[in-house]
């Protein structure tokens, strides 16, 4: 190979490196702005609500109280929770409802009286769907998701 050919190859290599550099910059900026936009979007979005229920004669009836669902919703007796439950059977930090990877998860936070889904006790995090009834101590909530 002559010197000219090697120099040409090196020029092409340097030019390609510059193009890759610009591409990487554009990609990093695009990803950053997209994730920022997603996060802003996620905060504005309405996901659904938790409807407080009351058991009358074996059937569940809404009490009229509804709580908007947030990507991370905490339930418990303490007023610092997203949904504060005024109920003696609820622990101060009772349970968490969270959106992860497109699924809604329910987790018991080692509460004294336990958390239930459709009457079954929750021992480890579980996926919940539209219409499930969550029991926190003596209080019940129905999950309603907006699609």
């Amino acid at each position, binding site marked *: 190979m002559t010197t000219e050919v090697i120099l040409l190859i*090196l020029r092409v290599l340097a030019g390609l490196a510059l193009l890759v550099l*610009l591409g990487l910059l554009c990609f990093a*900026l695009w990803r950053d702005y997209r994730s920022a936009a997603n996060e802003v979007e996620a905060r504005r979005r309405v996901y659904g609500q938790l409807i407080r229920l009351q058991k009358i004669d074996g059937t569940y009836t809404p009490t009229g109280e509804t709580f908007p669902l947030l990507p991370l919703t905490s339930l418990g007796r303490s007023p610092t929770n997203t949904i504060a439950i005024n109920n003696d059977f609820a622990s101060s930090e009772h349970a968490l409802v969270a959106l992860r990877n497109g699924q809604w998860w329910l*987790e018991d936070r080692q509460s004294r009286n336990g958390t239930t889904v459709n009457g079954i006790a929750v021992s480890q995090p579980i996926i919940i769907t539209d219409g499930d009834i969550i029991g926190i101590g003596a209080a019940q909530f129905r999950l309603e998701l907006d699609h």
Partner: protein
Amino acid sequence: MFIEQLALDQRQAALARQRWTERALLITAWVFLAANTLALSISRGDFRLEAWWHLLAWTVCAIAGVWLLDKRLPRRDPLLFPLALIMTGWGIIAIERLEERLEPIFADRQTVWLIISVGAMLIVASLPQVLRWLRVYRYTLLVIGLALLVSTILLGSNPSAQPGAPELWLGFGTVFFQPSEPLKIILVAFLASYMAEQYPALRAEGLEAEHRLLSLSPRILGPILLMWGLSVVFLVWQRDLGTAILIFVVFLTLLYVASGYTPLLLIGAVLVLIAGIAAYQLFAVVQLRVDIWINPWPEASGDAYQIVQSLFAFASGGVFGQGIGQGAPNNIPVVHSDFIFAAIAEEWGLLGVIAVIGCLMTLVTRGLRSATLQRGRPFTALLAVGLSLLIGLQSLLIMGGVLKLIPLTGVTLPFFSYGGSSLLTNFVILALLLRLSSESPSPTGER
């Protein structure tokens, strides 16, 4: 707990993505630099070890920088550090290529300055209190800056030792230092902290719209105008007009950002125009610069030789450039400092010019982005705006000047140009931006 663990995993994945971006950028830059170093050696026909030492020093700086920043500032903006290193490395190889004509080994010196600058950047970036110090000791800093400027007027010299050249440097033996460079940071920090203190007044909270001008009363503006005027007077006295106009524009923009009062921009434009006309009447240098900007061709081999050669360099560069070591950028006088952009245009062409502008633009927008994330903290927000503007406006001034879009002002192209004090200052600005970006909360408000 499980759900919190998932959230933590997501945050760690984001962090890993950021680290990947940083490393990928640095590796690409290394390939670019290595290809150019090899091409330069081949086209010169001699494999001097110096060029490879520069690449090695750059690599060590990159690795040490990433390693230490990962330890000290894991939540920093991942683009800032690679961008600065890419630009400095590119500058060094360009200076190395221009060396045929330059007597003391400029690229060697620039490499030593790179090592010093990266060290200074790491120190400043790991000081947890550095932003508070800038705010608390603003008057002390300003007095030090002005004292340095006065001592330059009294004792100043010029490294090239030509008679009549502006004497903007303080010499210590063979090392020269330009005090107007650190003064830029000090002045921006001062303006930001003062305006942050007067923020409610500047924002005119509780004032009717028609009484808006009242908020800019002399009581609030007086101290700012005094300090800023003093600095500009000193700089004009020294004929350092490029830095003077830079500080003038940064001041007006910061005032606009702090007050959100649009007519300020109009007033500012008129003021710049008046200052320009006054300078045209007062200074022979300015008159000459404006005259050769309007029409360089009658003086093409005289006073306008530099700018005309620069335009030729751009023209001969074409789209892909002549290739390193294969153009003739040494026809431009003092090409290694103010006109390095023309040398890059000749040897790397339009592609190189776009890459240069892309790097600088990304750096500035990242700085401005970290300013927008400083919610409810006017000082850090204004500081981020001011520091980004320093780099952005200085680049615009010199790139526009070299391209004959605006009259030439003698400032350096940040990170690229030869100049130790300029490089050191820019890396300290970078350190402050890194600190600001890692202290800003993420868009969701999580810390």
